[in-house]
């Protein structure tokens, strides 16, 4: 695939690199906010510990990790893959405009959080009300990402005109599915923020319906998870087998998996609202079905990616049933990061099936179990993949060798260790009833020692995670400013399928699948939302208890 593309002009990766830089900066600040929370929940009395600092840090950690770090990283990865597989970015100027728009929006939102005026958490459920700039800043970030999607699609279409009858390069196929999903998901967010929250925060309307706002939030909130996961899968399918020295096991199934994610990951939001009034049980059950259906492409991924790695081990001479595992490059930072990310996803995925289990959800809803869960699937599966991919991207984007390769090699293992301590403790504490997001797990003395010890172990895990994050940031910054310049920049090479697809098939028909995806979202949401709107409803005025 790469052979057909001319070597990039110097500086052609500058746009991608700028995005990765912002992503890593957001990640660094967010990590510091994270460790403060872990210590506070465990009642470690560090200096400056206070309720307002705790809830402020929960908000900053969530917004910077979930919205800023991920979105900027994905935009950067997208540009890098477009340049590498299509040999172009069509609309570079628009790309830079979008970068600044998103960066300014993120800084504005983050500033209102750090000034203590938007302690509403990353879910910003009304009637908690943030500073108007919080909502406006977040909107600019999303508008920036919409322009990014447009540039990516324009690049693909320009390439497509010159290459009729050829299937989309596999890494681009995954990114395009991600972008279409993102438009579908952020439609719900745009309705919530632009139609409901911004006019209300500026005082133009007096009240807001919290359940309607939550419904639009989770229209966006679950596919948001897949907006992170799909680019991680792009790395697993296209970069990981190559780094391991193997081949991609199946090209058509890879395309099928990304299309299934596009179809199934939006009409599922009610599994975040099982405990909400205002939505009938039947619709919650329907969303349970689609939530379980979206497990399927991940099951298929487990086979395809692991089979690709087995091919790698066998190409290196493995003969027995399991000795191929030992021949994989466990000392390579990209490989180690992604392999550990996949391991976490095995456990996190099954935890997710429990969360989505309709009635069983009541045992874990809004408990520390949920924190344990999403730090496995997002804090490790996605974040560790992105960290590993950063190690892989930097020499290719900057033309510099990684500095401190020893730190980069050890860092993923340190992260995994910290997360095991953190996540297992919170899973157990959650089953024992510890509510999530509490300044002090003692609950003003009412806790009855149910989770003593567990929150302390989680805090130790949090400190280890912070150290690992610090190592990652040190490697990135040192590489950026002091990495040895490579005589020839490292090239982008992707896994070659065992049986390459030669003509565009049904999984390349993006127009068709977009139409089906819109139909499924309409099916899942049109009636419940119409039903809510027809019901006599009473809005809420704003509250700022922070």
């Amino acid at each position, binding site marked *: 695939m790469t052979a057909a593309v001319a070597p990039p002009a110097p500086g052609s990766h500058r746009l991608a690199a700028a995005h990765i830089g912002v992503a890593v900066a957001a990640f660094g600040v967010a990590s510091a906010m994270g460790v403060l929370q872990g210590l506070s929940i465990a009642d470690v009395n560090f200096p400056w510990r206070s*309720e307002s600092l705790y*809830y402020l840090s929960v908000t900053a950690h969530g917004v910077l990790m979930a919205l800023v770090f991920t979105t900027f990283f994905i935009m950067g990865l997208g540009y890098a893959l477009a340049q590498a597989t299509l040999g172009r970015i069509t609309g570079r100027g628009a790309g830079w405009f979008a970068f600044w728009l998103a960066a300014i929006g993120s800084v504005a939102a983050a500033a209102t959080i750090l000034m203590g005026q938007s*302690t509403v958490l990353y879910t910003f*459920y009304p*009637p*908690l009300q943030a500073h108007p700039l919080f909502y406006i800043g977040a909107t600019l970030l999303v508008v920036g990402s919409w322009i990014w999607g447009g540039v990516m699609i324009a690049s693909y279409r320009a390439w497509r005109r010159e290459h009729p009858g050829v299937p989309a390069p596999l890494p681009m196929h995954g990114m395009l599915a991600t972008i279409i999903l993102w438009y579908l998901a952020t439609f719900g967010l745009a309705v919530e923020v632009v139609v409901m929250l911004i006019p209300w925060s500026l005082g133009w309307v007096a009240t807001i*319906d*919290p*359940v309607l706002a*939550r419904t639009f939030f989770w229209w966006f909130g679950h596919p948001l998870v897949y907006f992170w996961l799909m680019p991680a899968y792009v790395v697993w399918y296209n970069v990981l087998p190559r780094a391991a020295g193997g081949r991609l*096991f*199946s090209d058509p*199934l890879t395309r099928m998996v990304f299309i299934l994610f596009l179809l199934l990951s939006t009409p599922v939001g009610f599994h975040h609202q099982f*405990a*909400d*009034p*205002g939505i*009938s*049980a039947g619709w*919650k*059950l329907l969303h*349970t079905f689609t939530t*379980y*259906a979206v*497990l*399927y492409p991940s*099951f298929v991924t487990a*086979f395809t990616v692991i*089979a690709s790695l087995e091919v790698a081990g066998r190409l290196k001479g493995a003969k027995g049933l399991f000795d191929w595992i030992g021949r994989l490059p466990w000392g390579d930072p990209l490989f180690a990061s992604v392999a550990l990310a996949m391991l976490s996803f095995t456990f996190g995925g099954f935890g997710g*099936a429990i969360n989505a*289990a*309709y*009635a069983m*959800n*009541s*045992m874990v*809803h*809004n*408990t520390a179990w949920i924190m344990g869960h999403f730090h496995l699937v997002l804090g490790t599966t996605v974040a560790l993949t992105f960290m590993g991919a950063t190690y892989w991207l930097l020499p290719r984007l900057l033309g510099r060798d990684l500095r401190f390769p020893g730190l980069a090699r050890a860092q993923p293992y340190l992260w995994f260790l910290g997360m095991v301590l953190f996540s297992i403790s919170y899973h157990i504490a959650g089953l*024992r*009833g510890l*509510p*999530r*997001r*509490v300044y*002090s797990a003692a*609950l*003003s003395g*009412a806790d009855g020692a*149910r989770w003593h010890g567990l929150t302390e172990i989680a805090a130790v895990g949090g400190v280890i995670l912070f150290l690992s994050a610090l190592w990652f940031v040190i490697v990135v910054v040192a590489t950026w400013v002091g990495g040895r310049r490579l005589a020839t920049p490292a090239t982008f090479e992707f896994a070659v399928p065992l049986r390459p697809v030669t003509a565009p*098939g049904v999984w390349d028909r993006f127009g068709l699948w977009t139409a089906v995806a819109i139909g499924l979202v309409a099916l899942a949401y049109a009636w419940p939302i119409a039903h809510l709107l027809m*019901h*006599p*409803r*009473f809005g*809420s*005025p704003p*509250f700022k*208890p*922070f």
Partner: protein
Amino acid sequence: MHVELYERIWMWAAAGVIAVFLGTIVLTAGLHAIQPPSHIETIDPATLSQDPEFGDPKVTARPDGGVVVSVRAEMFSFTPDPIEVPANRPVTFRLTSADVIHGFEIVGTNANAMAIPGYVSQFTVSFANPGEYLIACNEYCGLMHHNMVGKLIVKEEAP
């Protein structure tokens, strides 16, 4: 589309696992009426203090020997507190909020629902084990969120 035999077996097995998961959920939901709290009823939060039910929320007897517990959640308390209910009887909780969104979690049980202003949450449970239970708010509601706790006392039935 060419799919290797082993992968085809895996794909059918994965579909089977998902079918079993969903079948279990549908069976329990259907046979035992096990469902998440999904009541649809609205109420004006602005006039809650004059509301006949939530202005002075309390425990009231049901004709079948159970009780109805009306609960008003607000920053940073639950009313009534403590709540006294009989063991092994149907207990219907009705929740709403006077201000922001709160959570209502009876620790150690599966009673767990949101209290959302403008809406009434309703669900019915029964408690087999008498004793004292901790009620915790599990949705961030402001700087004293972690202090928002209450107590449930489940009393042995009179012989």
